[in-house]
């Protein structure tokens, strides 16, 4: 409990630091939401000035920060000047889409990475391992955006996949099976990009962790005792290799909200990414800050969950803590 409390306090401190920094950065960024209105010849400077005053931009910085933080603690993420609406309902719709995408991608990436990493580790130096290492190196070297463009080109040339969006027209009139198929069809390319970006990192970590345990004296002893290979790998070696993987899993969970932002923009997925980018460009800071804070909360919670799991499964941490 003491350990969990300390980690929680650490996370809360981190969130306060993120909130102060992001709020300050938003304020020092050149221009504000109404800067773009200044470029519209239909709108006079007096009207823009009145709108600025109406939106409370003229209040001192600490007052604005205080009001914003008080709102966040009440679950009110502020008011979007672009949408003329509270931010929370805007985010709710987008978060679902983002989590759907990243959740599936993370799951698939882990499902690929664990067996492939173990398989690769048990065949060190053999052609299979070399092929796997070369493929992961290549994928690691290709930026997600390039992968996205390549897959979009495939969609344009073949017509096999849609070039954006989450649902087809008339989605609400489809039956559940048809809806699921339609959703999967739209998700295929963005999920593929995310999996191809994430899986190589995971494969490498799993392989490295397994290699370390494979060479450990206890593994040698177990092998000498004639424990069957499959049982040895999954019952004895994998649990011993879990520590770094649990930490990595925490990061995976923590980045569920933020990992796909660029891919969403590039592939027209209606998640937080396009909303966030548009808000940054338009200086709609309430939306920007809300997305940053939510991403930070996810990251803190993901890491906290990993820490707690590690605490539970690794007695060494409990000893150090105690």
């Amino acid at each position, binding site marked *: 409990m003491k350990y969990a409390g300390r980690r929680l306090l650490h996370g809360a401190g981190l969130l306060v630091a993120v909130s102060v920094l992001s709020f300050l950065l938003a304020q020092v960024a050149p221009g504000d939401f109404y800067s773009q209105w*200044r470029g519209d010849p*239909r*709108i006079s*400077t007096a009207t*823009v000035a009145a*709108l600025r005053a109406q939106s409370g931009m003229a209040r001192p910085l600490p007052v604005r920060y205080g009001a914003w933080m008080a709102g966040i603690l009440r679950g009110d993420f502020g008011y979007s000047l672009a*949408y003329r609406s509270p931010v929370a309902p805007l985010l709710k719709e987008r978060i679902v889409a983002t989590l759907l995408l990243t959740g599936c991608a993370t799951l698939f990436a882990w499902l690929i990475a664990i067996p492939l990493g173990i398989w690769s580790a048990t065949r060190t130096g053999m052609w299979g391992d070399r092929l796997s290492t070369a493929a992961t190196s290549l994928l690691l070297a290709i930026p997600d955006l390039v992968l996205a463009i390549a897959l979009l080109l495939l969609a344009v040339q073949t017509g096999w996949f849609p070039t954006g969006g989450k649902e087809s027209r008339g989605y*609400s009139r489809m039956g559940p099976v048809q809806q699921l198929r339609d959703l999967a069809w739209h998700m295929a390319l963005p999920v593929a990009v995310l999996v191809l970006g994430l899986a190589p990192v995971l494969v490498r970590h799993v392989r490295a962790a397994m290699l370390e345990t494979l060479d450990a004296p206890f593994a040698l002893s177990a092998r000498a005792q004639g424990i069957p290979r499959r049982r040895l790998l999954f019952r004895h070696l994998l649990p011993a290799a879990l520590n770094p993987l649990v930490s990595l899993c925490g990061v995976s969970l923590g980045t569920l909200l933020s990992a796909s932002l660029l891919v969403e923009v590039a592939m*027209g997925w209606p998640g937080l990414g396009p909303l966030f980018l548009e808000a940054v460009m338009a200086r709609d800071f309430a939306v920007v800050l809300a997305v940053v804070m939510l991403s930070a909360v996810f990251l803190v919670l993901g890491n906290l969950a990993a820490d707690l799991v590690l605490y539970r499964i690794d007695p060494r941490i409990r000893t150090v803590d105690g």
Partner: protein
Amino acid sequence: MLIFRYFAPVLLVLSAAAYGQPGDAFIVSGIAGRSGGTLVFAQRNEPKSLNPAVAADSASREVMHRINADLIHINRETQLTEPALAKSWTVSSDGLHYVLNLRKGVRFSDGHSFDADDVVFSFRVYLDEKVLSPQRDLLLLEGKPIAVRKLDAYRVAFDLPGPYAAAERLFDGFVILPRHILERPYLDGKLAEAWGVRSPADQVVGLGPFRLKQFVPGQRVVLERNPYYWKLDKEGTRLPYLSEVDFVFAGSEDMQVMRFQTGESDVISRPSARNFAVLQKEGERRGYTLKDAGPGLEYSVLFFNLNDSPAAGNAPFHRESFRRAVSLAIDRDAIVRLVYQGRAAALSTPVPPGDKAWVNDKLPRIVRSIPQAKQLLSADGFSWAPGGSLLDPAGKPVEFSIVTSAGNSERVQMATLIADDLKPLGIAVHVTPLDFASLLNRVFQTHDYEACLLSLSEADADPNTDMAVLLSSAGNHLWQPEQKTPATPWEAEIDGLMRRQMVTRNRVQRKQLFDRVQAIVMDKLPMIPLVSPYILVGARNDLGNFRPALLDHYALWNIEELYWRGGRD
């Protein structure tokens, strides 16, 4: 059968009454089409609001104008005004009083009757200082508001505080709001929040050809046919022909292009020249046609910071000779060729050639000439260092940076070409792309820049829209905004000419005044006109009545007339 024969005329009269009196319907002149089908239009961003009183972004306007209608409309094809919800109007001899006669029997998309109360309410909202509608300033003439009075249920008077040429053009874009829906939120001070993206579809009500059916955040807005629309075709069929319009949000121009290419959208509006060329290659195979409508009302300019700010200081661009030399050194034809692949017009006036009625075509065409540019500079005391660098009259090397919008690759390319063009003059130019908000902040707030490359877009083919840029007191007087008194005699002369053309009702005299304004701008060159891109659009081959326009809403301006030739579900 007998019963039907007796009652058929009664039924016809009843249905006419339900949907508006035939005498008051607007008959469109396009080819009569066939009803049904959905049109999919991919636009870059999602609308932020469907509230005409507060929305300012182009994505919202694109959708809103399909749901709403105005009193007097500018026909995008003829560029002339035509009756819309006002079937006719009269003007007093002094041009200060307009009386608009409204169509009778017109209904909002929820079936509620439209009358003068809706008009008075709408303009009350637009003029309200608390609402701060982005369109409010258009209804202020020299700071004074236009007064709106109800004369009877179908007549409304507009009293102008001063003479205003072509005042009927002002009405375009001021869509009529439903008093029965929006009066309550207005009185409660919550009008700005009304008709947001999560409003129930049946609460968003208008007089346009379509009404809101569904808004899926981040994905699409679906509009359905307004059964009460007040326009008919030549054969008496009630418009619009299309059953639904599906606005899908693509996120970027490239995604828009891909969706059009793959058939996921039916119309594309304003792709870049580069994408237009890509799309052209596959038009035949994929069943679409692209159209180049020629130069529109958008044009790009290079201007220098003429404010009394530290960034401008005693910079050489305060000298007319320097600005003229820079203009002479710019190869506009190369910009047209390399940046726009031939789909733009090189400019010699600050009015684009798309504004056919008002462009001063007597002004000489600017032909690139480095020797002439050098001659101008040396005559004004500039010299060249042994290495070829230009030195100002004080002996300081001349260099400056051009800020432009990073999100617009064409502008960045233009700035880069200009930097190259100015090398033979010995001027070092640095191109600094900035995000749009930062750019506008520098130009209009901090004045922390030396030169800027921007695009201007005239909202209407009329000189009055240029007041916001050309008047020295205007906020968009790019090179030195909001001057208390004109900084130079020629700016004072432009102010006088623009104010005179604004009140002159004789079109020939207005043209003469505006020609002189253009001549002064080209002589003093506070902004250097560069090029005007062509209006490029595309549509599926079987879309009927598709006639792109040079004014805003280029592809969908006549959406009520669009139809599928072969029929589509």
